[in-house]
């Protein structure tokens, strides 16, 4: 619409003037709504940081003790505030979930974009979306009531609450995320690259593993990192399945506690507001926020970089 922009004006062509005062008001209203998202971020940062600082000043715990301490017992008479056990629990769940979700997710994505008949695709995609739509508390119930008893017939030393079933259900939960993001990355690889491979007589496996996957690698990496961030923040399923025992361990048969399930544990109890155990949930929340934020930023950076390649 070149007519609408004055010659030489710096205004973009889709900048149709909003002449009326009432229209300007509507525009401002819309802006205010969009600005709520910035206020939300500000609110999260302010709340977490002020309460976390309140925790550090009130409990006289130094940040070094908090981030490096290997004992977590905030409600005991002799409280210890070392977050390492909670981070370790979260890491166990995240790694376990990725072990389940990443291979299956990538293979599913390859199948859907390279092999599947359009009809199969049409059925398989909604099924995956359904998996993503099931509330996380349902996964927790399934882990606790079906998966753990089932696994205990094979693994005798498995505790009632254990990191293993927690990881498996969180893996199932993030599977649709991995597969759909990987599929996006794989279908962004230009057709010409594949055709070049086939023209040289390659099989589908060779084209997929030597041409498509390397070209889509950054997108797949971003998908995995985003899935990790989702697993880190996952709450209800791990609270139900993995237990409430802060534990520095690499043993998936044991009961552990993640950062998220600690927050749930304190929120459910009658912890008086303003007390030190109450303030810990903000310090833990701040740590959780920083970890997921870091992962998301890395993923976004990777995606941006890879978009430039084929844009």
């Amino acid at each position, binding site marked *: *619409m070149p007519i*609408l922009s004055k010659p030489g004006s710096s205004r*973009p062509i*889709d*900048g*149709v003037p*909003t*002449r009326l005062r009432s*229209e300007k008001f509507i*525009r401002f*209203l*819309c802006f205010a*709504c*969009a600005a709520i*998202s*910035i206020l*939300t971020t500000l609110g*999260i940062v302010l*709340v*977490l940081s002020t*309460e976390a600082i309140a925790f550090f000043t009130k409990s006289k715990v130094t940040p070094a003790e908090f981030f490096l301490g290997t004992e977590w017992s905030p409600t005991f008479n002799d409280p210890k505030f070392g977050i390492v056990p909670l981070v370790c629990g979260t890491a166990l769940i995240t790694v376990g979930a990725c072990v389940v979700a990443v*291979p299956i997710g990538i*293979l*599913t994505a390859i199948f*859907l974009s*390279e*092999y599947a008949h359009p009809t199969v695709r049409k059925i*398989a995609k909604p*099924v995956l979306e*359904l*998996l993503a*739509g*099931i*509330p996380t*508390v*349902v996964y*927790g119930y*399934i882990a606790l009531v*079906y998966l753990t008893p089932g696994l205990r017939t094979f693994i005798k030393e498995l505790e009632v609450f254990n990191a293993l079933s927690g990881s498996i259900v969180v893996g*199932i939960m993030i*599977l649709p995320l991995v597969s759909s993001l990987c599929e996006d990355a794989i279908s962004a690889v230009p057709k010409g690259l594949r055709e070049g491979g086939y023209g040289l007589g390659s*099989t*589908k*496996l060779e084209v997929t593993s030597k041409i498509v996957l390397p070209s889509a690698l950054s997108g797949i990496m971003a998908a995995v990192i985003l899935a990790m*961030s989702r697993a880190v*923040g*996952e*709450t*209800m399923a791990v609270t*139900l399945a993995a237990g409430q025992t802060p534990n520095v361990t690499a043993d998936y048969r044991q009961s552990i506690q993640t950062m998220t399930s600690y*927050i*749930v544990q304190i*929120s459910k109890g009658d912890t008086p507001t303003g007390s030190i155990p109450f303030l810990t*949930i903000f310090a833990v*929340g701040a740590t*959780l*926020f920083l970890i*997921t*934020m870091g992962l998301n930023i890395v993923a*976004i950076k990777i995606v941006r970089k890879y978009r430039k390649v084929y844009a």
Partner: protein
Amino acid sequence: MNFLLLRRLRTRANRRWVKDKMFEFLCQLSVLLAVVILISLLWSVFSTGFGRVSSQFLTSFPSRIPQNAGVKAAILGSLWVVGITAVVAIPIGVAAAVYLEEYKIRDSKLTDFIQINISNLAGVPSIVYGLLGLELFVRLAGLGRSILAGSLTMTLLILPMVIIVSQEALKAVPRTIREASYGLGATRWQTIRYQVLPSALPGIMTGIILSLSRAIGESAPLITIGAVTYISSIPEGVNDRFTVLPIQIFDWSSRPQKGFQDAAAGAIVVLLAILLVMNSLAIILRARARR
């Protein structure tokens, strides 16, 4: 070509072919695995849960005796929370999307910043929103552990999603419709109000329904702001205390008695039924939008 070389080539080709087929089978297997997992999960829940759902179950309050326990308070609580969340989140989310899509100024640092911020917010764990709601709505605004505080927390949680899906719907409206409207002398708001929003409506509705179904299934932020599990009265206003279905499921699942775990399965059936209805609605709307 001599015979031996030909044979070697053929076996090599064979091996490549076999590998290729094996890989295809592996891929099929992984998809099948996802489908089998879904079906077996749902089957296991439904087989115990279905028997538990009865009119008594739907119209009773929670109880210490598992057989008498019901989900009345939880269903009503969920409906209250989702209803108020919808009332607050839909206008704000759509207006924000309109600003970002229709009023955007190209290469504006501010809109870019808002956009990046929204996608970042979508990745923040839900329990962090719970901490925000606890501080902001429960303590600072003095709303207490009420339905209103829960709904506002949920609003903040689903807003990024509502904005993103509404933006997608607005993007799908052809540029020519806007140009024709401007060409007839309509102002920007008239164009948005009478042309863009009506054409984007089915898409926006689909996205909103999906966001609200996320709100129905979400429980972590509500536990953080202090929703309780034992409610023996119907919530009558936005200032009442409340529980929601997922929290009820959480509470029953974590009890050791078999009776309560069966009740949890029953509540899951109810929750999934509500979600199924909402999702079917979204799919119907999406099909209508494509036409």
